[in-house]
């Protein structure tokens, strides 16, 4: 557990990078990052989130207040020892260009005096664990893409198996597709490792996705709200938080609602190579095409098929919801489908059936009613 108690950081003049218009970067912050959970600090530029993070490993010294890790005041510890016990991941990874990936990962264990062989074999495990090919261990950072560098950064921070991790916008310098991939793998890793993580981002979507709890800071380093992501979206405490959390809150909050069991309609399908007659025989303007393993490939407009169904005529705009996914994914599948019938697949990606938006809405409303009055919960699930 990382605990901030009345922590203030005041810069002598306005030259401090996080000081904004005033000279106070962090103002009387009291906050707890619980053990084994991800606490996300989020806020606009100048809200002191990075300063807050860097005060934990004393890269920045607080002006007043105490920060403790598992009850030990960080100010009382030797600074190098303190830092070696905390995993540290930063925006551009900050890998050492002259060292191979493997030697980058062994940095902290080597500083702690672990012998080279032990450190290396553990590093190899970690390199695989963060989703890198073991062959990459011998490469140099300049030979890796941004996303790969960031994975190495995470492996390096984990190398000495620290109970606490500080992550300063680790995924913000990569493109959105890679970012999402990294976020998902980060969550998977965390579900195995259960580290106490303090995570800084300016991206509220990332905060809501990753955080067990999210702390929204306002300019000047004042804590505006500390809550679970679902609560943050459902019930922002003031206009600042509401504005920062952004639009589509009702829709985005559905991400946290697991898809209930709904009755799905059977969907007639065709496979690739089906003739135009086969497609038209189905009788609907849009026909779903599935692959050999029963996985949905895309919709075909019956009128547009000239001789047979090929990959080029597939309409790929529709998203596919999973039976184990969220209500948001279910609704999105229905809304994005050209036929109006949302495609639902099972955990293995095989088509289960389709559902219309009008059928998802009652499930959403039932959920809200259930939340309002606990007694009607059974009623809702019965539907």
């Amino acid at each position: 557990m990382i605990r901030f108690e009345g922590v203030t950081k005041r810069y002598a003049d306005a030259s401090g990078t996080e000081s904004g218009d005033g000279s106070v970067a962090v103002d009387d912050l009291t906050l707890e990052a619980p053990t084994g959970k991800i606490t996300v600090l989020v806020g606009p530029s100048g809200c002191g989130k990075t300063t807050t993070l860097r005060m934990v490993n004393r890269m920045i010294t607080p002006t007043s207040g105490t920060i403790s890790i598992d009850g030990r005041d960080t100010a009382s510890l030797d600074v190098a020892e303190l830092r070696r016990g905390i995993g540290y991941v930063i925006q551009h990874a900050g890998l050492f260009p002259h060292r191979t990936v493997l030697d980058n990962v062994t940095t902290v264990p080597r500083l702690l005096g672990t012998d080279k062989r032990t450190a290396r074999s553990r590093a190899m495990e970690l390199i695989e664990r963060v989703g890198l090919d073991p062959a990459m261990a011998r490469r140099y950072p300049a030979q890796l893409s941004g996303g790969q560098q960031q994975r190495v950064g995470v492996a390096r921070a984990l190398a000495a198996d620290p109970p606490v991790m500080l992550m300063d916008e680790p995924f913000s310098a990569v493109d959105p597709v890679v970012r999402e991939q990294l976020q998902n793998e980060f969550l998977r890793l965390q579900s195995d490792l259960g580290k106490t993580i303090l995570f800084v981002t300016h991206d509220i979507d990332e905060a809501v996705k990753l955080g067990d709890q999210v702390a929204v800071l306002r300019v000047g380093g004042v804590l505006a709200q500390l809550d679970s992501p679902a609560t943050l979206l459902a019930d922002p405490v003031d206009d600042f938080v509401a504005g920062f959390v952004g639009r589509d809150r009702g829709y985005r909050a559905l991400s946290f609602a697991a898809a209930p069991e709904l009755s799905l309609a059977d969907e007639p399908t065709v496979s690739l190579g089906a003739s135009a007659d086969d497609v038209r025989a189905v009788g609907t303007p849009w026909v779903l095409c599935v692959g050999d393993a029963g996985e949905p490939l895309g919709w075909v407009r019956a009128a547009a098929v000239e001789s047979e169904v090929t990959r080029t005529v597939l309409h790929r705009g529709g998203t596919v919801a999973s039976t184990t996914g969220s209500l948001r994914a279910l609704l999105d599948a229905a809304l994005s489908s050209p036929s109006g019938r949302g495609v639902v697949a099972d955990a293995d990606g095989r088509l289960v059936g389709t559902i219309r938006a009008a059928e998802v809405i009652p499930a959403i409303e039932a959920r809200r009613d259930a939340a309002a009055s606990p007694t009607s919960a059974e009623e809702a699930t019965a539907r």
Partner: protein
Amino acid sequence: MSLAKIFGWFTDPANWQGADGVPHRVLEHLLYTGLTLLVALVVAVPLGAWVGHSGRLRWLVTGANAARAVPTLGLLFAVSMFVGPLIQSDLAFVIPSITVLVLLAIPPLLSGTYAGIDSVEPAARDAARGMGMTGWQVLTKVEAPCALPLFLSGLRSATLQVIATATIAASVSLGGLGRYLIDGLASRDYVQMVCGSILVAALALVADGLLALLEKRAVSPGISGRATRVARSRARNSDPHSEPDSDGADRSDPDPRQAALVGSGTTGPVQATATTGTPSERDRT
């Protein structure tokens, strides 16, 4: 004068023996060069490293570069007149010679060291500190290896300049390859002068070649760009986690700061020959 005369000079056994022979003169020349570089390294490297590491007193580097404008030969005579009466031995000439050569060697070494340390990616430095390296560990384990290419190009530049300019030691009655130039000029033996120039140029080239080899061995492939060039295309094609990499393409290019800071035309062997070819003219200015 013809090539035959030059060839004749080099093949004359008399020119390879005794105190005035080529081996002895080369040895003397190397001694001056080595001593100069040693003193210059002791002064410039800690200073450059400290300026780069702390970011303070940057004007020192600029100031040292400005000192390159001082005419070496003039300075040599000035220092000799100052120091000469104080010392009663050969040192009266050795100290002034080494002093002016050291002043010549310091700017490239200082700016090379400074630029090398200063060019270390801030993120790498921040990560090093954040992972619990002490200031000394950050300097020795991260900053120094990353600074090596720029430092070594400063060293190469300084070595070339010192070898070329160490000829001036002869003008204050010391030895070295400069003797062939000064004595040749005095006795209008132009063949000897040309041969001396050739020896200086050859020595400079050999020294530069050795340093280039050292650079190849000592600099991490991760920095020199060698590893990047070899594996980049392979990484692109076969890598399951291959991701778009917009900023990677130009990473193997040499740091543009290198050329700018280490000075104009002191890194290439071609330039070195041009400078060493006419040392007497150069020093007269």
